[in-house]
């Protein structure tokens, strides 16, 4: 069965580029455009991996991450934070909250990001 990836990101263009490339890679993609929907889908669908932006409408990425890791049912799901925030404090906090890794968007090519996703899924 195809592995599911939940992509929580409010940029539609990114949802499209990422969705397309990962679907072609054989993954099933679920998308959420805000933190609230994201959290609901995490509980309902229990995806194999979560890709999470930090600046999101309704509930921000930090809180989504915190709640996911607090819930015993969802805390094992690896979370990759994909962001443009670059403050040392923000990134440290993300790891402290239990994210597998973080990627600063402008520093990586799409290929490199896909590589990291595969690694987090143990492939």
């Amino acid at each position, binding site marked *: 069965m195809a592995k599911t990836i939940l992509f929580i990101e409010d940029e539609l263009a990114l949802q499209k580029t990422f969705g*397309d490339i990962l679907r072609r890679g054989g993954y099933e993609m679920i998308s959420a455009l805000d933190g609230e929907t994201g959290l609901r889908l995490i509980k309902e669908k229990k995806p194999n991996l979560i890709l999470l932006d930090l600046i999101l409408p309704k509930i921000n990425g930090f809180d989504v991450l915190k709640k996911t890791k607090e819930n015993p049912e969802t805390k094992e799901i690896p979370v990759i934070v994909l962001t443009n925030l670059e*403050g040392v404090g923000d990134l440290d906090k993300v790891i402290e909250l239990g994210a597998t890794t973080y990627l600063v968007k402008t520093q990586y090519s799409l290929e490199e990001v896909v590589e990291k996703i595969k690694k987090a899924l143990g492939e």
Partner: protein
Amino acid sequence: MNRRFIEELNITAQCKRYGLSLWQCPQFLFLIMGLIIIGSTLSTYTIGTRYIEDPEIVALIVLILTTILFIIAFIITRSFERLAEANRMKSEFVKIVSHQLRSPITNLSWAIDILMSGEMGKVEEKQTEYLKILKENSSRMIDLVKDLLIVSRIEEGSLMIKREKISIEPIIKKLISRFEPFVLASNVEIKFEAGENLPQVFIDAHQIEIVIENLFDNAIRYIKGEGEIKIKLKQRDKTLYFEIKDTGVGIPKDDQKFIFQKFFRSENAIRQQTQGSGLGLFIAKSIIERFDGQIGFESEENKGSTFWFTLPINQ
């Protein structure tokens, strides 16, 4: 209104907002000026009443003089304050704009990645050429935005640093292998010479990587045709010394004193249409000085340049 008034009285907070040290901050200087005026008034008054016949006239003169001085001082500091505020707003503007530009540029760059990967259908050779131009230019925009963000953080005094004990040598080796494809393509040879048992330094690995990357990038960029880059890392007294020497176009003598200025680009660099934002060396100098190091260079036009920096060891 009341709250604003109280906020204005908090001098350290105000100075921090402008990113200025106390001795450069208008509010603090005004306070000091006021204290000096009050002090000198009181002493003049004491001396006057003791040695001059009619103390009331002396007191009156002193009072009038002080008031005038006070008003002048107030006007001067107000104008300084406006300048500082304008400068702060400029940095803030640069920061917001560059931050906002990052998302659209990433979208652009990743969309180009997808097209180039051929996943969305076969790409003709002619199309690949144009896609490469798009990709190259989006990378340039990403670099520029990254540099602008670092500059605005430096100016605001909010560049976060994480000090840890690290060795510089692995960072240089990593950068050499990262630049290798670029270097081979431009027919440049790289030599790296590192001293034995080099000490570690207490700095931020990420920031020092930015510095070396900028110097390295310049060295390659300004070599036209074949050339050679020599990198040296050694201990010199109580400092770690880094040097990068290139056989590039060099910096004209008249331009040398401006080379670390923000946005400055030397006349021969522009003439030869070498790309660059003029921010790299400004960033490098700011970072090195932040770690109490020194940075400098020697250069001769058409012969090449040598850039060096030192970092203190015992910290």
